[in-house]
């Protein structure tokens, strides 16, 4: 492996500390900045409402919400980087062996080679737990591409690799077989390809790719991953930070009013609610008689496909959670799309 510096000793003294500072800046500051951007969107772009949210939403809650919705995004970025890095690393080795080394070893290849095994493993475990089940098959070739750059993989004999691949593929086929039939019947060809193709492709990518393609990937990979991350970050940016509720407030004459929105906070006398369609309502606590939690229309699935009764648009974590609390109750108050009084 080559580095930017002239000698390894110098690299450890000068680059590592700077790299570590940059790393922590990114790890702490980026989610914080991203969370604030989310609050801005959540507030409907209104400065005063944003300030109210900032004053009421605690940093810990915000980061926790960020972690819950952002894990998928972060692991996606890392898996993409590692997988491409693995492919590029293998190809760079092949090019070097053939006496045609590239001027600099590709960035992603250096990253995956430098990444400790625990980071790679944690990334894949988190991805497996938080990605939608429909996209989990992509992890199989990504796993092979990433780990073929590690010494642990290279130490395996070809026969051992073949045996492992056969066992994994057979188990995979047994798990998804009924769903493939359902997808065919429902004319969901994209889902069919997504479930069937990636594990087969995994068998083919443990070879170096032609040098030209490797160079093309190396030059386009960084902007491509960035674009993918921005594209995937958009829905995360608009995911609400506060849960959606319908609050029943009863007026002095007993008429109930149903207010649909996100509860920002409450003090001894007042509760502030950010209404779903915009605007903040302050309600006297004594007027509030009931409150229910409501789902969002965005939570409705697109597919009617299940893998062994796990819905393909759930993550494994969500699917297991649904088995712990199998009943989904949608309160009557959630069905009305508007804030209303009777």
């Amino acid at each position: 492996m080559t580095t930017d510096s002239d000698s390894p000793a110098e690299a450890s003294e000068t680059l590592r500390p700077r790299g570590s500072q940059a790393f922590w800046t990114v790890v702490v500051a980026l989610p914080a900045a991203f969370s604030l951007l989310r609050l801005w969107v959540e507030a409907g772009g209104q400065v005063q409402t944003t300030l109210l949210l900032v004053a009421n939403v605690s940093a810990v809650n915000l980061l926790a919400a960020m972690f819950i919705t952002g894990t998928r995004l972060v692991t996606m970025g890392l898996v993409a980087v590692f997988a491409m890095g693995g492919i590029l690393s293998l190809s760079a080795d092949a090019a070097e062996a053939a006496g045609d080394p590239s001027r600099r070893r590709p960035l992603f290849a250096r990253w995956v080679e430098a990444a400790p095994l625990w980071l790679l493993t944690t990334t894949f475990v988190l991805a497996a737990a938080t990605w939608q089940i429909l996209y989990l098959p992509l992890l199989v070739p990504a796993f092979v591409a990433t780990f073929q750059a590690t010494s642990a993989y290279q130490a395996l004999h070809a026969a051992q690799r073949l045996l492992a691949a056969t066992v994994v593929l057979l188990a995979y086929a047994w798990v998804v077989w009924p769903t493939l039939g359902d997808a065919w019947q429902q004319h969901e060809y994209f889902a069919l390809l997504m479930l069937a193709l990636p594990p087969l492709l995994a068998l083919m990518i443990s070879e170096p790719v032609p040098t030209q393609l490797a160079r093309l990937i190396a030059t386009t990979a960084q902007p491509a991953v960035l674009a993918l991350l921005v594209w995937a970050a958009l829905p995360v940016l608009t995911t609400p930070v506060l849960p959606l509720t319908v609050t029943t407030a009863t007026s002095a004459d007993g008429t109930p009013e149903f207010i649909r929105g996100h509860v920002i906070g409450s003090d001894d006398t007042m509760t502030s609610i950010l209404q779903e369609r915009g605007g903040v309502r302050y309600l006297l606590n004594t007027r509030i008689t009931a409150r229910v939690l409501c789902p969002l229309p965005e939570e409705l699935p697109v597919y009617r496909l299940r893998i062994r009764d796990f819905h393909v648009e759930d993550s494994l974590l969500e699917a297991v959670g649904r088995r712990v609390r199998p009943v989904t109750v949608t309160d009557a108050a959630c069905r009305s799309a508007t804030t209303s009084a009777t």
Partner: protein
Amino acid sequence: MVGFSQKKLVAAGAVLVLLILVGAAAWRGETETPDLPSVAEKLAEAGLDDHARHPVLRIGIHTERRLLGFQENGVYTGFDIEIARYIAKNLGYGDKIEWTPIRNANDRILFLEQDTVDLVLASFSITDERKKRVRFAGPYLITEQSVLVSAKNKTISSIQDLRNLAGKVCVAASTTSESLLEDRQIRPDARDNSEVCFKGILDGKYQAMVAGRTILVGFASQYPEQVKVLDLELGLEDNLGIDRVGIGVSKNNPALQDLVNYFLNKSYLEQQSGRMTEWQSAYDRYLAVPHGQQSQPKPDEAPQLLDYDAKAPMR
């Protein structure tokens, strides 16, 4: 430059296909919309999503039929009432129900046509004739035509006995019971509703009345000493006398029919999977003893809609 080996080309192809697949996944993940209509969309189509404009669900019911639809001191009880509450809750109306009393059989169709009510749950049997004027969801109950007589009566035990009682057999006009009696060549006195007939039995004006068994067992439960329901087969080969009781919906509101069918079917499927349903607890509470054990019938239509429980475990 290194020559392209076959393996390298395969690997290159695999990588390209993967990249295309990832791109397609990213694109579809953002832009894909469900094929199925959602419950929320159907509610909007049915005009029931905006409670500011449609603040209460108006339901036509009987108010004098014990076990089915009964009102006492402003409290509504009965099997039909419980099913109506189940539907209202699922349509997002909870307790926001306006109960509209149905006084005679014809009102059930008229109220729907005149948009006085949104739904009718009043022993409303599904027939082809009625389907020309209203829509039906369900059935949510299967019952049969039966005969109710005074407890002292020992003379009526056959169809022929009923034929001999011209004018002394009472039936509610415009009901499936009336047409069954016509088919049986029994000439009844057709009155506004079954309550009038029942009063006539108590007063001694009529000797027998014919109606759905659920209605009759309700009357009998009210006056167990004075009346009894006979085990008399009224059905014919071409008119079995089986009533498939449904929920009436206006002809102009197919979305509401879909919604009601969807929630009835949901309850049916839950029962099939062995879970206790609101249908079953309502039936057990009101009808299981006098009408006999029954489970929820399968609705004729089961529209597929998307709801928030679409990802819930199925087993």
